[in-house]
């Protein structure tokens, strides 16, 4: 699903250069639930942005779903992202002006699904996540857990090949965090690849494989569940 070789990312700001990622080699196969674990500033988010096709590496190879992503044009990258990648954010990333139903429906609108089709898909997601009763609520009427469930619902609704979750429990208490992790596990069990970034070892434990990142390097790979 994701293969990187000697992936490097350097930020240039005037005369100052800062290496964010250095020689990152990662292989993530379809159906995996992988956690990138590391402290703040380790390069997790940059790596997630590159996986999410909203940032490009400075050098190195990056293959995603069989495409050499570094050679794709912006439009092709948008198209790839639009139908194949679901994003989950630390701060939930919901649009305030839209209610729960509309937030989940939004990606389908950009994918030009017809109304009936959207209705069917959104309702099935709402049922799956047990939030049908919240569908006409706005984000400011929801608690953190409910908001993140909506965020997950929006990522799932396009049936993505991969879900990228950037610290999905970062703004939640431990109980809500645990619920979110269980939900992600359930999604993964149905076959969706999940890549999660986190600095919580607790959350990381709930993934299948942990990749530790520090100062832009991959330090260790825990492959406990593979064995």
């Amino acid at each position, binding site marked *: 699903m994701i293969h990187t070789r000697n992936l490097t990312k350097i930020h240039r700001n005037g005369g100052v250069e800062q290496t964010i990622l250095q020689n990152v080699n990662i292989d993530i196969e379809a159906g995996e639930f992988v956690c990138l674990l590391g402290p703040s500033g380790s390069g997790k988010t940059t790596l997630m942005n590159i996986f999410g096709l*909203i940032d490009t590496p400075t050098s190195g190879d990056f293959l995603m779903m069989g495409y050499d992503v570094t050679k794709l044009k912006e439009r092709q990258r948008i198209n790839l992202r639009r139908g194949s990648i679901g*994003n989950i954010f630390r701060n939930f990333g919901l*649009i305030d002006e839209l209610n729960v139903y509309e937030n989940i429906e939004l990606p389908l609108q950009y994918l030009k699904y017809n109304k009936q089709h959207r209705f069917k898909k959104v309702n099935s997601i709402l049922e799956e996540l047990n939030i049908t009763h919240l569908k006409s609520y706005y984000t400011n009427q929801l608690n953190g857990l409910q908001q993140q469930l909506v965020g997950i619902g929006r990522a799932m609704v396009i049936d993505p090949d991969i879900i990228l979750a950037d610290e999905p429990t970062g703004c939640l208490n431990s109980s809500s965090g645990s619920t979110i992790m269980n939900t992600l596990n359930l999604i993964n069990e149905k076959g969706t690849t999940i890549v999660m970034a986190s600095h919580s070892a607790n959350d990381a434990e709930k993934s299948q494989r942990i990749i530790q990142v520090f100062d832009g390097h991959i330090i260790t790979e825990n492959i406990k569940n593979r064995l």
Partner: protein
Amino acid sequence: MLKHHIKVALRNIRKQGFYSFLNILSLSVGITLSLLVLLLVKHELSYDKSFNQSESIYRVATKGILSSNFINSATSPMPLGDLMTKYDEVESVVRFVPGANNVVSNEDVKFNEEHFRFADASFFEIFDLDIIAGESESLLKSPNSVVLTKSAANKYFGEQNPIGKIITRANMNYKVTGICEDMPVTSHFKFNFLASISTIDAILLKKADTTYVQNWKKDWLYLNCYTYIKLKPTVESRSFEENFNKEKDALLLPQVKETLQSELSTDSIKLDFYLQPITDIHLHSHLTAELQPNSKPVYINLFIFIAVFILLTTCINFINLTTAKARRRFNEVALRQMVGAGRRQLVWQFLTEAILYSLSATFFGLVLLELLIPFFNFFFNLQLNFSILTGWIDFFWILMLVLFVSIMSGAFPAFFFSGLKPKHILQGNYRIKNNGLLVRGIFVCAQIAISIFLLIVVTGMWWQISYINQYNPGFDSKNIMVIERGGAIGKNYQNFKSDLLKINGIESVSACSSLPGDDYFQGTFKIKNGANEKVAVLPMNYVDRDYFTMLNLTLKTGRFLDEAEGDSLGILLNHTAITEYDIKKPLGQKIEVFGNKDFELNVVGVVKDFHFETYYEKIKPLALILMGEKMNFDYILVKLNAQHSVATSQLINETWKKYSESSPFEWQMLTTRLSNLYEEDIRIAKIISVFAILSLFMTILGIIALTAFITEYKSKDIGIKKVLGISRQSIILQIFSDFSLYIIIGVILSILPAFIALTAWIESYAYARFLNGFIFILDAVFVAGLAYLSVFYQSYRMASERPADSWQYK
């Protein structure tokens, strides 16, 4: 997707509360104002365009030299019309002669009527007004027949059918043969009554013999009518003009030769005729004897400029207000991009929002326009009308305006937001670029500059208007009542005068034939100066002997005219006449009436110059002559003293009725009459004042928007500084110093154009006082002060926020 965009936009408008309100208010006012100005421009440009093939209709004007006097008049001689009918190029010709202000009556219904014209039967071939009643083929063909406009018919006959009825004017009966619709408001002349031109023969025969009437109709040197022609569509007007000017010389020159021979004069007389497209008259023609005051193209340019400026300002304020709250939208844009929104979809989203804003603003704007139009028409003496339902063109232009405003104002936020990179926003390090700030600053500079410009221009206009109100005209106009149409008294003037003098409250009574603002009767004289002879065309005023003392004119030499001194052949000149014609010894100087060698006038005195015309004109030579006993005065002047009361006017009215056979009693104070001469300028000054105030309002909105944007732009820096303990004053001072540059540039940019515009306007006056330099500075300081005040309000709010608030989005 469109439904989605509309839904989101509506929710955003609701959510942003105060900013949405400011935005819609600014857009509504902008749209209303520009629509008003565009209506005004449309009104001004539509003059005389409602007639069929109006582009082929021309007025024939006269230009030339008579002795040393230049003539450029809207009038032309009668025989020209006969000549025109002979050309194949001409489809039809009409001449008309304006009748004097006179009483028209239908039994007991009597009114003074100014717009009574005598016209050829071909009038309706050129000015194709609808004939509501009467047989259109026979209209104006027989003498003493008249066509009434619809409103005149209502005024005199109410519900009755006027056809075949008789109206009376100056002891002459006219049979009503037709009713036509009213002349469009946007025409360069008006009429309420149109009598057949052949009636003039009968009128003239009452006063003179048939030879005179024939001469009156054949005289090439007497500019006594207005001639209009309609050319065939393919005819080129310039070459036609050249042709007929060559041919008219064959007819005109023998008469010139004859006149010069009979006068033993060597002066040159040369008259040429030229064609004025009637559609150009309202804006471009300023000849003598215009049928009504015309406008100037500079006003149209000014109005178009104002409309464009208002629209641009509106758009810029919209952009500033929309993007000022950018932080709120950054995350939304990034998230949308993350879930698959392409640039095009984002552009459409923001454009939809802008269109929604414009549409709602247009709705409020149109309501405002509907409410304002009657007020505007009343206050500015306009006749604008506006209707979406009846005029699809209006509606089309409004749609265009909405689209223009939406696209102009929506395009920038749309491309601004859609061009954002999600990774930057998500990393929290996105900042609005400095160059954006520069562009916004330039626009706000322009707004400030234009506000100051308008304020200076309008102050300058009022400055001049107040100057002319206070200017000493050289005569005393206080407490003088002017009774119009004094001719109604007829030969009983002296009796009327002595009756009036018996009324308590009246100091003196006098009369004259012209007052400032009138076209003076021009007399042609021969002035002998040693061996030299000069032909002089002098404006003349026939007066009564008390005229001089009533107006308190100053004598330079000699004495005032007086019948008791045997001055029926006496003439009084003003000082300019003496200098202009180089009369060394004016007293006793003989002045011969041109064309009548036996008729000589004797100069008895010279008066100090006074303004017998408006302040637009330099003082010209003037001749004052006593009115003969058989002649009628146009105005009766009554000087009131301190004892006058309401009863005085009632008694004057009763005396008037007794002598004038119940003619309408119309009067006004001379001071009012004089200040009304500048009505058009006052009207324009009022309009520009309103625009200056509204432009100031828009500028303040613009400054609020830009300050909102600047505080947004600086919010992070300010937050950090606050954490470090900077004082509120320092923060406000910092924002002030950022803003000062725009204000100072705005001030500098405005001064010179305001000076140039005001100079151009003031040049139309021969007597003017230019705005004091101090006022220039005061205007600039006033606008700058208002600008600082609105900056202060916002920067104070920002400086008072807690540091955490400044960072909450980071």
